[in-house]
C-alpha cells in the first residue's frame, strides 16, 4: 500500500497566520492509496494543515511538495454560495473544466445525489452540499482526495454511510485519502493511519497505536473505554477555553512529542 512516490509531502512545515504560529515542524507524506485521518482539538491547525498541503496557504517555514501531475480533489469544510450567483449542481460539477453530462450524472449517483443535477446550489442542505462537493472531487479522477471534516452537518447514519462511500471510492479509484476526522469511532474503523495534530504532530500511527499513545490521551481523555463520549466531552471543553488553553497545552506537550508513542508509525 505504501509503495510509489509520495503524492504530497511536507518537510518542516510551519505556518503563521496573522502573527500567530498555527503549525510548526510538521513532517508528513501521503502515499498512493492510503487513508490518513487527522484528528485534533479545535484550533489545532487541522484546516490550515490541509490548506497548506493543497497550496492555499503559503508555508512560512519548510516546504510542501506535490507530485508533479498528481490530481488532487479537495473537499472544503463548507462552501458559502452567494445567493446572487445562480448555478445548478450539474454546472458546478463542470467547473473549472467542463465534463460530459454522463460523467456528471455518474459522479452524482456515486455520491448518492442522483437526479439532483438540476437543483440550485444555494438551495442545498449542508449534507447535500457535502455530497455534491465530494462528487465534484471524484469527477477529476483524483490521485488524492483531501477532505476537511466531510461529515459535518450529517446525522450519524449519514456519517457512517459517507465513510463507507469514501472506502468504496478508495478501492474503486485507488486514490489516497487525507481527511480531517471528527468522530473517534469513525477514525478507528476507516483509517490506515491517524495523525494527532495540535500545532505540530503529537503522535501518529495505526489507529489503535495512536489511541493508546499518552500524547493522544492527553488531548482526548484518559480512559480506555467510552472513547467516543470522552472525545466529545474534551472537544466541547477545549472549545470554551479557546486560545489560552491551546497555548499552555502546547508547551507542556512538546517534550512528550518525542516520547515513546510519537513514532508509532507502522
Amino acid at each position, binding site marked *: 500500500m505504501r509503495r510509489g512516490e509520495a503524492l504530497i509531502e511536507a518537510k518542516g512545515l510551519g505556518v503563521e497566520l*496573522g502573527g500567530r504560529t498555527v503549525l510548526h515542524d510538521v513532517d508528513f507524506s501521503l502515499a498512493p492509496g492510503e487513508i490518513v485521518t487527522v484528528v485534533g482539538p479545535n484550533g489545532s491547525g487541522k484546516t490550515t494543515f490541509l490548506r497548506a498541503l*493543497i497550496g*492555499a496557504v503559503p508555508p512560512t517555514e519548510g516546504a510542501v511538495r506535490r507530485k508533479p501531475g498528481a490530481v488532487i480533489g*479537495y473537499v472544503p469544510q463548507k*462552501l458559502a*454560495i452567494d445567493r446572487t*450567483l445562480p448555478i*445548478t449542481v450539474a454546472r458546478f460539477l463542470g*467547473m*473549472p473544466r467542463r465534463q460530459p453530462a454522463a460523467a456528471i450524472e455518474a459522479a452524482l449517483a456515486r455520491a448518492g445525489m442522483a437526479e439532483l443535477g438540476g437543483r440550485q446550489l444555494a438551495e442545498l442542505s449542508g449534507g447535500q452540499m457535502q455530497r455534491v462537493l465530494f462528487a465534484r472531487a471524484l469527477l477529476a479522477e483524483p490521485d488524492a482526495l483531501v477532505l476537511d471534516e466531510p461529515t459535518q452537518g450529517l446525522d450519524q447514519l449519514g456519517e457512517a454511510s459517507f465513510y463507507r462511500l469514501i472506502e468504496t471510492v478508495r478501492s474503486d479509484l485507488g486514490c489516497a485519502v487525507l481527511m480531517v476526522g471528527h468522530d473517534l469511532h469513525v477514525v478507528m474503523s476507516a483509517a490506515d493511519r491517524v495523525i494527532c495534530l495540535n500545532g505540530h504532530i503529537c503522535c501518529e500511527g495505526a489507529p489503535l497505536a495512536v489511541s493508546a499513545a499518552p500524547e493522544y490521551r492527553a488531548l482526548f481523555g484518559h480512559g480506555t473505554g467510552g472513547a467516543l463520549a470522552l472525545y466529545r466531552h474534551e472537544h466541547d471543553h477545549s472549545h470554551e477555553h479557546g486560545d489560552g488553553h491551546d497555548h499552555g497545552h502546547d508547551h507542556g506537550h512538546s517534550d512528550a512529542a518525542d516520547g515513546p508513542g510519537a513514532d508509532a508509525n507502522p
Partner: protein
Amino acid sequence: MFDDFMVRAALAGVGLMLAAGPLGCFVVWRRMAYFGDATAHAAILGVALALMFDVSTFWGVLATALAMATAVWSLSERGVGSDAVLGVFAHSALALGLVAVSLLEGIRVDLMSYLFGDILAVTTSDLFIIWAGGGVVAALLAWRWQSLLAATLDGDLALASGVNPRREQLCLTVALALVIAAAIKVVGALLIGAMLLIPAATARPFARTPEAMVVLAACFGGAAVLLGLAASYQWDTPTGPTIVSVAAGGYLASTLLASLRKS
C-alpha cells in the same frame, strides 16, 4: 448616419453595456460594489491628471482607475479591505479628484459631464474607444470564463483544481478599470457603479445559470440605455441619470415579479 447624435449615443450606451452587464455580474457575485465605487470615483482624479498633462481623458482615467483598483485589491488581499476602508478610499478619491480639477489653471472643466456623463456629446472617436474597450473586456471575460467562475465560487476549490484565484481577481480588476475608462463619457463617474450593479441585480431572479444571468444583464442594460435615451429626449431630462432611473425601474419590476412568482 453616424452624424446623428442620438444614434451615436445609443451605440455608445449599448456597446458599454455589452461589457458592463457581464462584468457587473461578477461585481454582484463577489460583493465588489464598494470596490467598483472606489475605482470609479478615482476617475475624476484621472480627468484632472489627463488635463494637466494634456493626454486624452481615456488614458488618464484608465491609469488612475487601475492604480486605485490595484491599491484596493492589495489591501483586501492583506485582509484590511473592510467596508469602512473601501468607503474611505471611495469618498477620498472623489474629493481629491474634485480638488485637483479646481486647481487646474486656465482650463474650465465641465465637471457635471464627468460626474454624470454626457452621452449626447459622444464623438465618433469616443465611440471607437468605447467599443474597443468594451470589446476587450467582453473578450477577456469570455476567454477566462470558466476560471473566473471557479475563483468566484471558492478560492480554495479553484486553487486545488489548478486555477489561481489571485490571477483571476487581477483580471477582473483590469476589466473594471477598462470599463470605467470607457464609461466616463456615457454615464459619468458617479453613475458607473449603478450601471454595473442594477442590470445584474435585475437579471438575477430570471437566471438559473451564471451564463443566463450574464446575457440577461447585458440585455437589460442595453434596454435601459435605449429607453433612457428615448425618455430623456422626450422629457428633456439629463440623459445619464434618466438611464439609471429606467434601469432602477426595471430592477423594481423584476423584484416584484420574482416575489409574486414565489408566493
